[in-house]
């Protein structure tokens, strides 16, 4: 009698271990597998969890309409736990073990750079939904977020305009990592081209999670004494609250020194006291407050989904730019698969070129014929008391992305179509 439990426990233990090493893949012929690669734990969970849910919602919606090529989509959700090497490991798992046909995922550039070699090696397909610094154009990635010329440059043009306050001096404040560094480098070159001298530009960087902005706000004040100043903030997520609080407490108002942020959206404002931020600006390609029928339906769907799935904070569910980009990306991919008549990566890639989709932003977005980026409209929104943005300015229409910014030396020689990075 003693042998049996032993056998059972060892069997169970080895199965446990095996399933870790060799995740079982149950291949049902009638589904198309879609990988979702967003951190559900760790520091990035705060931003990425809602993208995972948005992806699941979109997949549900497509399935409800009959799926793609007559097959249902089957989401495969994995958790890279905000750990960059784990992103690569999970990507390899999705591609080689689960055999997904496409992946939607990643948030930061470092996570994308971590998985990129895997996608290029195994010829997978990744949709990346977040604004980033450009300087990359892989045939295995479609970028549905903004390139710098679809976010940063129009925002500065707005600040230079009469309506934006005709700023003469620019304080570029960012968290010390690649996205702010590259964006600010592009902006500096752009400002030079508009006749702004170096003495009127100040670049300051803080560490991740910096929470003491006293010195920096004092510096901004000092700097602003020299003429109409605007702050361009690429401060990363969590540090924004202490920064804006300090600004407000030291008596700096948006009318005196406007701050335009590239990483503050509805989701980030959800958990904070918005009073000190009212009137400050953000530049995105979509805001929840945009008024058009597509968006109303989109927002209503998301709220209903959040409630139905009992997501945390469902009563205050909001949509934001990366969520819209995820939604657009999945829908465009589904259209491309229909057009190609296959989920084969090479065929889908060809079919993606020129795909259009009526997006919640109120525009019909087009996937560029060559450069794997969406043509996107740019909007400047002002923070309202309720944590929403009111659009105060927007571009005439969608702009074509310039992943290789002309403001960075040597980029003019880079081809405007996707080539493998190695």
């Amino acid at each position: 009698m003693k042998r049996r439990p032993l056998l059972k426990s060892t069997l169970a233990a080895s199965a446990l271990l095996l399933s870790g090493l060799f995740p079982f893949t149950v291949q049902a012929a009638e589904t198309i597998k879609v990988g979702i690669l967003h951190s559900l734990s760790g520091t990035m969970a705060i931003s990425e969890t809602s993208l995972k849910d948005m992806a699941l919602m979109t997949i549900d919606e497509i399935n409800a309409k009959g799926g793609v090529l007559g097959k249902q989509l089957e989401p495969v959700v994995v958790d890279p736990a905000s750990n960059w090497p784990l992103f690569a490991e999970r990507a390899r798992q999705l591609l080689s073990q689960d055999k997904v046909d496409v992946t939607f995922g990643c948030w930061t550039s470092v996570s994308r750079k971590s998985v990129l070699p895997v996608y290029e090696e195994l010829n997978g397909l990744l949709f990346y939904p977040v604004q980033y610094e450009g300087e990359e154009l892989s045939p295995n990635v479609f970028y549905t977020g903004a390139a710098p010329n679809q976010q940063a440059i129009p925002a500065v043009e707005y600040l230079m305009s009469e309506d934006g306050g005709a700023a003469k001096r620019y304080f570029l404040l960012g968290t010390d990592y690649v996205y702010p560094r590259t964006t600010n480098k592009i902006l500096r070159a752009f400002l030079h081209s508009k006749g702004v001298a170096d003495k009127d530009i100040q670049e300051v960087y803080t560490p991740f999670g910096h929470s003491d902005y006293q010195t920096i706000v004092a510096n901004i004040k000092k700097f602003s004494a020299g003429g109409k100043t605007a702050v361009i903030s690429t401060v990363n997520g969590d540090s924004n609250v202490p920064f804006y609080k300090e600004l407000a407490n030291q008596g700096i108002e948006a009318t005196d020194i406007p701050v335009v942020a590239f990483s503050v959206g509805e989701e980030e404002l959800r958990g904070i006291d918005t009073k000190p931020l009212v009137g400050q600006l953000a530049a995105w390609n979509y805001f929840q407050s945009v008024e058009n029928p597509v968006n109303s339906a989109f927002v209503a769907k998301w709220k209903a989904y959040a409630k139905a799935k009992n997501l945390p904070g469902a009563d205050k569910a909001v949509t934001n730019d990366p969520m819209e980009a995820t939604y657009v990306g999945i829908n465009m991919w589904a259209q491309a698969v229909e057009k190609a008549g296959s989920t084969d990566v090479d065929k889908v890639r060809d079919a993606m070129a020129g795909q259009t989709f009526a997006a919640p932003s109120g525009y019909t977005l087009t996937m560029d014929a060559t450069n794997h980026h969406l043509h996107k409209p740019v909007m400047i929104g002002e923070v309202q008391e309720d944590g929403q943005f009111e659009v105060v300015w927007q571009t005439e229409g969608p702009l074509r992305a310039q992943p290789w910014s002309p403001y960075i030396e040597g980029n003019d020689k880079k081809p405007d179509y996707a080539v493998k990075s190695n």
Partner: protein
Amino acid sequence: MNQPLAITVAQKAGPKVTLGVGALVLAVLIALPLLHLLPADNVLHVSAYTLTLVGKILCYCIVALALDLVWGYAGLLSLGHGLFFALGGYAMGMYLSREAAGDGLPAFMSFLAWTELPWYWYGTSNFLWALCLVVLAPGLLALVFGFFAFRSRIKGVYFSIMTQALTFAGMLLFFRNETGFGGNNGFTGFTRILGFDITAQGTRAALFIATLALLVGSLYLGFKLARSKFGRVLTAVRDAENRLMFCGYDPRGYKLFIWVLSAVLCGLAGALYVPQVGIINPSEMSPTNSIEAAVWVALGGRGTLIGPLLGAGLVNGMKSWFTVAFPEYWLFALGALFIGVTLYLPKGVIGLLRKRGEQ
């Protein structure tokens, strides 16, 4: 008789069985890279995913072993071993980035307006020099830090917190873009190593075997050290440093040697880790990672050589499984493991297995 029967059986088994199990595990580990070389449609083919996963865990095993040498034997709990690991990884990453970039600058530099390589990148395109860096960077840092720390007789908690501050400072430094190591992104996009395609089956298998060889080598070294007089003095340092000094020994040299050796082993593990997982970045230096490494050692059983390997394997295996199956509950499991081990298994899993064996 509340414990699972599997453990009871293991406890009853003599050292011969333990040796047998060890040999079996080693055989399987040697077989893995060879099976990887089979064509992909073969039933016995081991996928690249599995191979890199196991390879990664083997690298962690080396770290656990290195940490055990200083903690388990010399009683110095380092919460900064992630720094040495990452330094080794960065040294290898520098070589791999140069290799990928060819004659030009590594990609992250060229678009952040670096026009030339900083001086410390000099010679990193040479594999041998990179290997020297893998040893020298963590080794020298450990030597300098250890020399001063042991001279001031910093030990126990203070030592742990100082090492933690050290790795934290290192992380902040490497996060800076201007430090010249790619900032937050670190290095990725490696293509070739010594002229071989890094994604080729043969290269993967070779890297795996190198990792395994390093692990077995460090294990052998550990055994030799532990059995020698040197090992006994170290244990004495751990248990009663003052009495040892009264006996006329100067513990500083002993501590310094094992401390530097441990750092170098970590650096080597890091160097093997990077080409296998394909990325090195400053988050490897985060204090959390180093604390986790301490848990591997504690779980497996410190002061033994096999224990840490067992601990690293168990925790990482669990992690890979939990973060797929129940991502929300992984931290609960890990936390409970920490508490359970410290409360109920002061000698770790090995202690549990040995307890009965001795009876």
